[in-house]
């Protein structure tokens, strides 16, 4: 079935982009990887729209591409240039340990999603564990990174993956909800960008370790 093959391939590329993102050393390259990942996801939405016969989903794919491939990466790039920090290093764990853990998370994802994939009602169902692995990796990245910008990237990866689960499992949620979700994420990123500047101004670093005065 071409539908199943295409969605599986795109899901695989999607997850691959998460790993490639983690391997990048420069923030600009990470943002690029995120943009590519979003592009893959937008293509996936279009594929589901085509084979699933949903016109609504086409417009979702277009809006998604606009926001996540163009607007958000631009916002992030502007932040990277403005704060003048190019290197994305300083996770709590090094790259090789991170990749090892993320590989483990993929296994966990397959295990956790077993009840979901046990039934095979949809041709897209095989991609769900891959998407869920993306959720776990995004979560881990948000926790593991010290820099505000890379935490935001982790959150965005997580968000992308949840969107992908929605796409594969239910062929997208109703249009009004989808648009609401996009709006929320966009606003969240814009606010986070403001905070990155302010953290930079106030603490002369975007290292969130400096944010440690509120304890107890």
């Amino acid at each position, binding site marked *: 079935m071409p539908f199943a093959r295409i969605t599986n391939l795109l899901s695989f590329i999607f997850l691959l982009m998460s790993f490639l993102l983690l391997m990048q050393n420069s923030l600009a390259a990470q943002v690029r990887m995120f943009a590519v990942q979003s592009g893959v996801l937008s293509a996936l939405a279009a594929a589901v729209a085509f084979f699933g016969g949903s016109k609504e989903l086409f417009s979702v794919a277009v809006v998604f591409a606009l926001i996540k491939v163009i607007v958000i990466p631009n916002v992030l790039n502007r932040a990277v240039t403005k704060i003048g920090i190019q290197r994305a290093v300083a996770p709590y764990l090094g790259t090789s340990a991170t990749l090892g853990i993320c590989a483990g998370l993929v296994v966990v994802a397959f295990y956790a999603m077993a009840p979901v994939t046990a039934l095979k009602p949809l041709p897209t169902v095989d991609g769900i564990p891959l998407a869920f692995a993306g959720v776990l990796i995004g979560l881990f990245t948000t926790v593991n990174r010290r820099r505000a910008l890379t935490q935001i990237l982790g959150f965005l990866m997580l968000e992308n993956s949840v969107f992908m689960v929605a796409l594969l499992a239910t062929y997208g*949620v109703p249009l009004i909800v989808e648009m609401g979700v996009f709006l929320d994420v966009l606003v969240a990123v814009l606010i986070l960008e403001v905070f990155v500047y302010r953290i930079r101004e106030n603490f002369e670093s975007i290292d969130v370790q400096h944010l440690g005065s509120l304890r107890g």
Partner: protein
Amino acid sequence: MILLLLLSIPSVASAAIMGTRRRRTMEWIHASATVVALIVGASIGTRIWAGEPVVSWSLLRADALSAFMIGIVTFVGAVAGLYAVAYMRLEFDDNHLSQVRLFYALFQLFIFTMLLAVATDNLGLMWVAIEGTTLATVFLVNLHDNHTGLEAAYKYLIISSVGIALAFMGTVLVFYAASIEVGEIGLSWTMLISIAARLNPNIVKLAFIFILIGYGTKAGLAPMHTWLPDAHSEAPAPISALMSGVLLNVGIYALIRFKTVTDIAAGPEFSSVWLMRFGLLSLGLAAAFLLSQRNYKRMLAYSSVEHTGIVALGLGFGGYWGLLGALLHMINHALTKSMLFLVSGNISLRYHTTEIYGVRGLLKTAPWTGFAFLWGTLALIGLPPFGPFISEFIIFRSGFAAHSTPYAVTGIALLVVVFAGMLASLNHMLYGQPSGPMEARDPLRWSMVPLALNAILLLGFGLTLPAGVRAFLGQVLKTVGVSL
């Protein structure tokens, strides 16, 4: 239509305030919007009380549970909103007009998002609205624009957004389970309930874990509570009152909606065990931090974690009495905590510090403030004859009845620890001698008048549960499938 009216009040007010230059006009729009919202909210409540099962209009829908929440949101909104006017005059003079405008506009937007979250049948829209509550409040946390405020706001936004993304994952999984059974059903809760018995229990269980972690983050359940003490202590007092008194309850509301579905699909044991675990953990963690707390706003914030934990325990113990106790405790906690956070605004205006050690002799230096703080704190730590005592009693009683004795016993022991910790802080603040000479003067007096309502209601709920209220709560319980 009345729901549309209810939602349009805060949203129109918010837009109008953004376009206003004069401070007086902003204050008038803001204050009248909160009062009118309360009146409309109350009329929705009475319609449902009178026997109308649901009020609905397009995507908006209110059953008894929604009406219950609308009541809490609009009541606390009005009390905090009226207090806010005078408070803001003292905190921000006319040179900071842009901050004042932002405050009032976002305050109304915050109310709007919470009302939308509880007045829709669409679980996706509910998600959007709950994420909206974070976005509306994040600049309010950082209104003073200093280091700690920035730190609190950043943490709040990133933790809540991650949490809420997981809640979306859970929502999607529930609808996946539903779409396998019946195909396209939108994201409607009513539809979901009607087919809940046919859903695949394993998928629903998996979904519930995500929901619990996700909306639990907003409700302030440990260990996802870490944003809460920071955000609540940094925000201006009226916002802390709303966040603690209402926002946490909105998170719990979302949990109740999904718990109902999960219980039908997978049996009540599953959600019960997880709610009890998270509830007890919250209670324990809050107790540890309350024993040696140095900052009174953080003390109140950790106490919110504690009370969210108690409500979760009530939901976990389950049955008619467990859920009734949980609902009552949501009301009592909203009344108590909004009152105390507003009073804490008075204290910080008087002493210019939020450190417990900086506050001595409150009863002498600001008698009304001190008295209100005493009243509220005694209610909060669960002393009779106040409401929280009764609701906690009902909850733990139902715990023994449900054979969850270990959870109930540990919970009660932790309550004693909290009691000791908070009483010591209260003692320190109310009595003794202030460091310098201070005459007796309450910084805000007339603004505290609405708090009398909280105080009286707290006493009322402690002494009696009128038949009308009991009947209304019975209707709420019926919507989530529980009856005596």
